[in-house]
């Protein structure tokens, strides 16, 4: 496999390439593409929810279907859209930022992707084969989730279990990569903020996902094998599910928002032409947010009846998160202060993020005041709050990253006009949709309401909200058009189209398979900027041109995932008929057998020879 072979390949060859690839850039692209696909599904579900709520006592969809919609919207968006798209960017960009040729475990990276993808596919198959999708909310509280008829919740359990395993692998992989594979001179305190947030996020994944795994495991046994962990009548305890879920669920919020913080911490300095203000405090604020993120899960449970002592402690801990978050907001503002700000699509998203996310953070502090939360809890106020955080923070971050890194990943630049159009549609739609919901909640509209009644003062607010949702949908469509247009006719760009600061911009766009022909020597924070302003304008190599050791592609991760996927389906349906246990045995045998083969067979990879590298033009 020579790097010189760039001639067109047939569809089959391309497909095989992607099925077997262990290249972090291709895996990153697949994460983003699959995440975008699920984002569209989740978005359609959101629009159906908003159509149902366009007027009082509407009957666009039935009550049962509505509960399936809200469950699938939440689950899809959190687990199969936001998380994987961010992991995609981490995959595609983080190794480039630290001057690495790949992640530490390329094989594991591929396995992680396929597990996530088939987890998402499995969950969505519930619409067709589950007798209805899961309908107990994305939080799937017991005992409602135990009572839920059909196989919907079973699909939820197995789908999340599969993808959760994949995400956990990704987290471990990133931690090892960042600890062991930084280029010469890339000390921890010279790492770009996006790499830092990838690192901290991965640590969060490592500690948070096992709690979810345990919870899902117990739920699986309650639903499929007659245990009674959450069955009160048989001595179980339903509240335990809430603890397990939120011990995972609250850090999950930071798993989503910290990478977004990282993205903005790259974009704002790049387009302000200034180094990040207060780099050290940004790093420590990230750690502090991550640490506190594990200490506040019970603020989702203020109304459960944990008692005043627990509520008081968790209230104060929750409010304390405002401090490091505030530090970040002011550091971003100070970065721009005195800068020379260019406003393009990527920067527009970053600029819109600051006030939008500030509102989400503010309502977060307000929710933290437990005695006020007794009113906010489980109302549209909460819906508004977490959409301000997740959309105003995470989705804005994803769109910003798309515009910022698209040239690096694909060598073409997204269309500015379409970029701005999509921004304004989405931005206006977003605030129209969610700002009014703060008031709807306080005016007495609980969340997850299939209908709201006539003559309760909720009509106008809900109508406005629905209109806004459609604007967001339009904005998303324009982003899609932009991506398709750019892929076909977009302007080609050089390696460093933004005159940016970090290492990924020191190599060609799109990067070659091996990323860096010679590993670079890093002389400080913003290494490329240092070389551009004080050095030769390009990175100094830290090694001569030598043979580059590359890992071989492998179909094993895909086969293992197929095995687990078949076994999951077997688990779901063996409740109805024991014959399905055969699928469990077959699937597990396939997966474990592939693992054995993989373990016993040596794979030394291959080398790209230095003669080939030298033949490549710089």
């Amino acid at each position, binding site marked *: 496999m020579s790097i010189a072979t760039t001639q067109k390949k047939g569809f089959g060859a391309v497909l095989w390439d992607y099925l077997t690839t262990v290249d972090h850039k291709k895996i990153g692209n697949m994460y983003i593409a699959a995440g975008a696909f699920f984002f569209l599904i989740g978005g359609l579900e959101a629009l159906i929810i908003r159509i149902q709520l366009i007027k009082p006592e509407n009957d666009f969809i*039935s*009550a*049962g279907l*509505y*509960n399936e919609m809200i469950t699938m919207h939440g689950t899809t968006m959190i687990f199969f859209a936001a998380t994987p798209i961010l992991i995609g960017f981490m995959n595609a960009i983080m190794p480039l930022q630290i001057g690495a040729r790949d992640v530490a475990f390329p094989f594991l990276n591929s396995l992680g992707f396929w597990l996530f993808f088939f987890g998402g596919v499995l969950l969505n198959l519930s619409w067709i084969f589950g007798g209805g999708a899961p309908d107990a*909310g994305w939080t799937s*509280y017991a*005992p*409602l989730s135990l*009572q839920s008829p059909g196989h919907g919740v079973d699909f939820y359990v197995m789908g999340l279990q599969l993808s959760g395993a994949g995400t956990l692998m990704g987290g471990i992989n990133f931690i090892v990569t960042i600890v062991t594979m930084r280029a010469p001179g890339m000390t921890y305190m010279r790492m770009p903020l996006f790499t830092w947030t990838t690192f901290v996020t991965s640590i969060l994944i490592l500690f948070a996902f096992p709690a979810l795994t345990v919870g899902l495991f117990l739920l699986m046994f309650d639903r499929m094998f007659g245990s009674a962990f959450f069955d*009160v009548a048989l001595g179980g305890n*339903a509240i335990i599910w809430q603890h397990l879920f939120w011990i995972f669920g609250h850090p999950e919020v930071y798993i989503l928002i910290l990478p977004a913080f990282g993205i903005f911490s790259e974009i704002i300095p790049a387009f*302000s*032409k*200034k*180094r990040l*203000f*207060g780099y050290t*405090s940004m790093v420590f604020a990230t750690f502090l947010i991550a640490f506190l993120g594990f200490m506040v899960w019970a603020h989702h449970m203020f*109304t459960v*009846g944990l*008692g*005043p002592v627990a*509520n*008081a402690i968790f*209230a104060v801990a929750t*409010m304390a998160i*405002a401090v490091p978050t*505030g*530090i970040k907001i*002011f550091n971003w503002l100070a970065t721009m*202060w*005195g*800068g*020379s*700000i*260019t406003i393009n699509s990527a920067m527009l998203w970053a*600029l819109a993020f*600051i*006030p939008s996310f500030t*509102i989400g953070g*503010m*309502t977060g*502090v*307000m929710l933290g*005041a*437990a*005695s006020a939360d*007794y*009113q906010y*809890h489980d109302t549209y106020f909460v819906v508004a709050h977490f959409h301000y955080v997740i959309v105003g923070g995470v989705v804005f971050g994803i769109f910003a990253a798309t515009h910022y890194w698209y040239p690096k990943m694909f060598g073409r630049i997204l269309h500015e006009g379409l970029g701005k159009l999509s921004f304004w549609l989405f931005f206006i739609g977003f605030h129209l949709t969610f700002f009014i919901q703060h*008031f709807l909640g*306080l*005016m*007495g509209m*609980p969340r997850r*309401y299939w*209908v709201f009644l006539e003559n*309760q003062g*909720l009509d106008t607010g809900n109508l406005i909200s629905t209109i806004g949702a459609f604007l967001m949908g339009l904005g998303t469509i324009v982003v899609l058009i932009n991506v398709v247009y750019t892929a076909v006719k977009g302007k080609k760009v050089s390696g460093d189209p933004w005159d940016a600061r970090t290492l990924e911009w020191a190599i060609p766009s799109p990067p070659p398979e091996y990323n860096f022909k010679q590993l670079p020597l890093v002389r400080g924070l913003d290494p490329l900027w240092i070389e551009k302003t004080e050095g030769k304008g390009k990175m100094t190599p830290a090694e001569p041109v030598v043979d580059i050791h590359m890992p071989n592609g492998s179909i094993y991760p895909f086969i293992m995932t197929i095995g687990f996927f078949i076994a999951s389906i077997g688990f779901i349906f063996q409740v109805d008929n024991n014959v399905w246990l055969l699928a469990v045995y077959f699937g597990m045998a396939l997966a474990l057998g592939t693992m054995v083969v993989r373990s016993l067979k040596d794979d030394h990879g291959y080398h790209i020879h230095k003669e080939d590298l030298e033949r490549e033009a710089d």
Partner: protein
Amino acid sequence: MNGWMGKIRAVLMLSILSLVLAACGKENLTALDPKGYGADTSMDMIILTTLIMVVVFLVVIIVYSIVLVRFRRKKGQENYIPKQVEGNHTLEMVWTAIPIVLVLIMGVPAVMTVFDLADESEASDSINIEVTGNQYWWHFNYAGEEVVTSQDLYIPTGEKVYLNMQSSDVIHSFWVPSISGKMDVNPENVNTMYIEAYEEGVYWGKCAELCGPSHSLMDFKVIAVSPEEFDQWIADMQSVDPADEPQDAVAQEGKELFEANNCMGCHAIGSSPSAVGPNLTNFGDRTKIAGFLEPTEENLVDWIMDPESIKPGNKMTGKYPNLSEDEASSIAAYLMQLKPSEVTPESVGGIN
């Protein structure tokens, strides 16, 4: 709580009174117009935290606007490189310290109010009501009074009423926004909260924890009456004899059908603690049918004929033989004349 914060609140309330009246939602439903102790306490915290947060937001927005106006790249500056500032210790200390102070300002009253709202010291001397959440209706048992009802919870104004709440199936959450914040109703333990209504009236209650398809239809009401009227109502409820024959002939037939179809297997009339289905003792006085329909005989007939189409997933569907429309309307006539008391939702102003 009502010292300095009361003053802030008075000023704020005056200044935004028009806004509040115009846009804070339906009276007796909205949390923004508190009419009970819990809602009031929560509102104090909502106002305090909102004020502080709006100030923070304004600071952010002012800095942000200055940045956007002053520091945009101008024409002819394409090669201008700004000074690369690492940071500023004083500034960073300031924007770390001020938020800490703000968190303390909010945290202390938050903790105080949390303990205040969880205070159970007066429970033994107060009215205690056992609340049971069911898919998709509410059961109320007045402890020690031999009074049982459902859907409409009668309480006296001006005193703390303790609710001891448990669910018979999945988790529900008891929320009367105008009177008090919510508390979950769990299957495994009894949660206690108190509510206190300041004024007489009919207040909307909602279930606030997803509990199945008809979660959004699990409405109930709190009827706050004067203490004298409350005593009257208790006495009236206690004197109900389920065996009393109705005056009206159709209603009499309805009573026979009610018995013949074993409706009492689930629905008690009188103070029987049975709670498979809603207690119907004062059904004729109820604000709504099935929690949200207008209390008319037609609606009740529709409900009896096909409850599933009205409240999907309810537990009544299929539990009794098919009834003809005539039979259903006789039963409706019987139920609608169950009006044991002069103290009704109408007598405190009705539902608006």
